[in-house]
């Protein structure tokens, strides 16, 4: 469904083409690797071949004498500057360059700066590292066993690989409901390790000016302002002498939130050589060493009464955090927002316990369009509901419908304490089931199953669904911070004398279309054409402070900030208009107009024909007009928006698959997605976000996986091994929208960037398992996994296939 939607009227909103696409479709985007500064040098990282080994010695003399090498940086070099370790987002430290041990394959050991990228790579082979291999911890389930080697012996008094315990919900109330439940279903589910795998890998050009002492970092940074503070803390350069510039970014999905050793090494490389240093990682480096996602081993229990009403859910989770606890999430939420695992249902009590462990794998843990682990939560509850349906002989759709929260329950406080802002879940599910023609798919499925039982041949058909609730737009600063930085966003808007405008944002697009959506917000508030609003982002010297773009927070937080700033400018304009028209400001009525270059206008109530346009007001505000006290002149405003709550977008998805039981191959035949993200500012962009997320979901459900062998070797370090879905695996998406505005967002909008990534994997998995009649098997459901599940011997995805 495209075009106009309920709730998106007026100038500004609507499916206008993306302003940024003019340069992208012409190949004129400017990404980090397109930047070439005079005298620029090139960096390359030497990485550990071992998952776990002690470093006895690093000898860089041969590399240093390579004629084109200008510097070799080792852990020792960094230690001398107090930079060998850096703080993580999760109250831990991580090695920049290894000094004592390497703790995962691909970990950074040394950094070469050379005159060209070929020489930099050549010189890596000249560095001699003396390793003493140690037994690695690969299987997260063995990480806490007494025999497991201690990975983090750098930390004082460490005797095991335990990172944290965290719990939420009411254990006693939950136990009481379980005790009187007519039925309890249990299931072990692994949400395996996957990777955001943005098309553009991470990279930087660091440029330290020895004269001014100013460091300029061009980087793939989803959160430029947070990065500036991190550079200040780690490198000891005062924050006002650091400028982060994020140019065009080719996809992030959370992968470009964190601070990576390569960035810091490039900075040190620039400091020691006095020249700009570029470092851009290759595909293998990106897949092996940068923030992964998920890796949650979950045990879920769901209790229901005899009528199929869900009473309670209980979960225990083992979370594999890799070698350093570096998950990027609000610091009081060690398991992210996993606490929303009660999903879209009316559940009286719930409890969850999460234990994090260290393993010899890359750190990270939240990235990949997950809304801070809402992905895992949604997968858990949507799988459990299907298991319950199967165990109790109920239809999956009917069971959901009977348990969904109804619209009258909002705002709704969940059993784990989350306040859902608004929703109409039954309408979304009804719409999706109608679009899918659910009864006829069920009938077809029955016929195919009967034929299979007769002939032993497929295909088998399955239908799966999910009704997900997202939790996005972090977040209220009193609850949510990243490294002490509250998650409020600034925005600054200036209307120029001739009536065009510039909006400066703290968030940073990685392809989401901010230049268009945010211009539309200003257009909506001031009546200016979308093209008359320039959106500036990514440059910390030219944008206000804020926490960046991830967790679907841009529209909920920065979008609200833009709206508020524009509202302030409109009120300034009203004061100026009052002077121009010689009336009291209160007698002026705002008319947003039709989106012409004149912008909206103020007219005098009850006096037809007397009005002044925003364009005229802008000129007057910059001119010689005598303004009353308290009206400063010019049209400019800034704001800091502190969201009162998260927004809770939701949706209902139905997936239809065909499975070849002879080979285990799955074909996703149909995918119906009904999304509700409140008011849609640009429905086309929203649909684009949904398309991408649905493809992600098919990827994770059917093929994406980061696996390790017994020695901790990374088995997914290229796109030949880490499979991303292509257009061939994606059916024509069947989309629809319902609009339930957020009551607390100034525009009624909710975030949508991650909805489909969060909501689609369980729909696909449920469909495949429904087709083959298997209670549970873990993602990714590759042909081998499906076939083995059919044999009753499912494959454990988190360890290498043997």
């Amino acid at each position, binding site marked *: 469904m495209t075009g106009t939607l309920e709730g998106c009227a007026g100038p500004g909103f609507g499916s206008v083409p993306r302003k940024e696409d003019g340069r992208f479709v012409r190949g004129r985007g400017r990404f980090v690797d397109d930047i070439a500064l005079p005298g620029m040098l090139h960096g390359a990282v030497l990485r550990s071949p071992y998952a776990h080994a002690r470093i006895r010695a690093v000898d860089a003399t041969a590399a240093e004498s390579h004629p084109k090498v200008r510097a070799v940086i080792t852990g020792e070099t960094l230690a001398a500057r107090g930079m060998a370790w850096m703080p993580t987002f999760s109250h831990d430290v991580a090695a920049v360059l290894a000094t004592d041990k390497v703790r995962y394959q691909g970990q950074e050991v040394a950094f070469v700066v050379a005159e060209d*990228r070929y020489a930099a790579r050549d010189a890596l082979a000249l560095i001699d590292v003396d390793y003493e291999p140690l037994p690695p911890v690969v299987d997260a389930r063995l990480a806490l066993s007494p025999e497991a080697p201690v990975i983090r012996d750098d930390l004082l008094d460490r005797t095991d690989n335990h990172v944290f315990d965290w719990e939420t919900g009411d254990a006693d109330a939950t136990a009481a409901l379980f005790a009187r439940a007519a039925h309890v279903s249990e299931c072990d589910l692994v949400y395996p390790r996957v990777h955001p795998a943005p098309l553009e890998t991470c990279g930087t050009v660091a440029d330290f000016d020895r004269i001014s002492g100013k460091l300029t970092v061009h980087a793939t940074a989803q959160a430029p302002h947070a990065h500036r503070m991190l550079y200040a803390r780690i490198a000891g350069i005062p924050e006002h002498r650091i400028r982060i510039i994020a140019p065009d970014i080719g996809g992030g999905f959370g992968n470009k939130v964190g601070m990576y050793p390569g960035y810091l090494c490039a900075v040190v490389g620039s400091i020691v050589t006095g020249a700009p240093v570029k470092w851009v990682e*290759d595909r*293998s480096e990106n897949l092996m060493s940068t923030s992964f996602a998920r890796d949650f081993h979950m045990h879920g229990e769901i209790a229901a009464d005899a009528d199929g009403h869900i009473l309670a859910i209980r979960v225990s989770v083992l979370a594999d955090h890799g070698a350093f606890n570096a998950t990027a999430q609000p610091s009081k939420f060690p398991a992210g927002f996993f606490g929303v695992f009660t999903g879209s249902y009316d559940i009286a009590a719930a409890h969850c316990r999460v234990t994090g462990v260290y393993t010899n794998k890359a750190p990270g843990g939240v990235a990949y369009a997950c809304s801070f682990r809402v992905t895992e939560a949604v997968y858990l509850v949507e799988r459990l509901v299907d298991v319950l349906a199967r165990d109790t002989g109920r239809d999956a759709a009917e069971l959901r419908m009977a348990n969904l929260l109804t619209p009258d329950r909002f705002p709704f406080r969940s059993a784990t304490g989350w306040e859902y802002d608004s929703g109409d879940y039954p309408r979304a599910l009804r719409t999706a089931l109608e679009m899918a023609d659910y009864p006829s798919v069920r009938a077809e499925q029955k016929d195919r199953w009967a034929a299979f039982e007769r002939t032993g041949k497929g295909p088998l058909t399955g239908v799966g669904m999910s009704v997900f609730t997202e939790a996005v737009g972090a977040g209220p600063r009193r609850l949510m911070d990243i490294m002490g930085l509250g998650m409020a966003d600034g925005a600054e808007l200036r209307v120029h004398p001739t009536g065009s405008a510039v909006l400066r944002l703290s968030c940073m697009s990685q392809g989401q279309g901010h230049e268009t959506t945010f211009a539309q917000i200003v257009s909506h508030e001031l009546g200016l054409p979308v093209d008359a609003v320039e959106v500036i982002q990514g440059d910390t010297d030219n944008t206000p402070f804020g926490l960046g773009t991830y967790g679907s927070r841009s529209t909920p937080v920065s979008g609200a900030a833009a709206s508020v700033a524009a509202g302030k400018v409109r009120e300034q304009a009203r004061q100026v208009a009052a002077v121009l028209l010689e009336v009291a400001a209160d007698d002026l009525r705002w008319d947003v107009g039709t989106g012409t270059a004149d912008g909206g206008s103020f007219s005098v109530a009850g006096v037809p024909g007397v009005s002044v346009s925003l364009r005229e007001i802008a000129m007057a505000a910059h001119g010689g007009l005598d303004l009353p006290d308290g009206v400063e002149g010019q049209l400019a405003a800034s704001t800091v928006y502190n969201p009162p709550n998260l927004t809770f977008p939701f949706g209902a998805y139905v997936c239809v698959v065909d499975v070849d039981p002879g080979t285990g191959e799955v074909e996703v035949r149909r995918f119906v997605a009904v999304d509700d993200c409140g008011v849609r500012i640009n429905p086309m962009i929203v649909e684009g976000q949904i398309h991408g997320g649905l493809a992600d979901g098919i990827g994770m459900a*059917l093929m994406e996986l980061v696996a390790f062998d017994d020695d901790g070797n990374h088995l*997914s370090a290229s796109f030949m091994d880490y*499979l991303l879905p292509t257009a061939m695996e994606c059916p024509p998406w069947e989309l629809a929208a319902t609009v339930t505005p957020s009551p607390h967002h100034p525009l009624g909008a909710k975030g949508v960037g991650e909805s489909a990534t969060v909501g689609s994997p369980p729909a696909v998995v449920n469909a495949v398992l429904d087709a083959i009649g298997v209670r549970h098997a873990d993602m990714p459901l590759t042909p081998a996994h499906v076939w083995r599940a059919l044999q009753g011997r499912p494959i454990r995805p988190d360890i290498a*296939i*043997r």
Partner: protein
Amino acid sequence: MQVPAFFEYQRATSVAHVVTLLERFGPEARIVAGGHSLIPMMKLRLAQPELLVDVNDLHELAGITVEDGVLRIGALTRHAELLASPLAGEHFPILHDAERVIADPVVRNRGTIGGSVCQADPSEDLSGVFTALRAVAVVRGVDGDRTVPMREFFHGPYETAVRPAEILVELRVPLQPGAGSAYVKVDRRVGDWAVAAAGAVVSLGPGGVVEQVGIGLTAVGDADFTAVEAEDLLRGRVADEYTFAAAGEAAATHCRPVADQRGPVDYKRHLAGELTVRALRDATARAHRGGSTE
């Protein structure tokens, strides 16, 4: 960014020139055709040739023709050309079946038939196809041409009968009028290498009896990409579901797959059987129609 180590580069002007260069530079010289296997290995520095001999100008190596009852496919023929060739498809639908599932259009536009078989990757689809077809490779060196049956061409992973100072010139496939052929592959995703794949070429005699049959298996550990036991079992028997099942079982029993992230051994073994059956079924159906796909 992945970048290769230092190497020299020569653009060959004739096949003779190639042989001369290879002869002069020894085993550290490598032919580059489409580069879709070699260049990635160089970027990962798994291959570090000192000299690349570029054969892309050698039109004498390109082209698909039928002469004297033989389909001749030049080594420099691109995957896309083979896929688009009515001549190839008319005689051996297996070639189109396979080309449709090899890589993606971008790789197929550039990658060559010669490069594919000379790469000798254990998962290379065309290896199973040409062994099923009993094709013959023509290899040229300083002493002129010699021929190698494809069933003797592969000497283990990444090893072939082509010697350091030789070049594969063309593949010759004897026409088999009336034979049906087919190729089936299971991959985890379009463009992925095979988890397992099977090709079959079936000639039927009176009464639907199998006169001649070739079965190629890819990615299941057969060094020569051939299911000889299944072929032996089929010859002289009626081509029906029962026989196919027996042949599938033989293929499954005798293959030697190894476990990797594409799948465990039992699954790959199962696939070897299942896909052998399916390829035989399709090839036989085509044989009944005189070899064509329609």
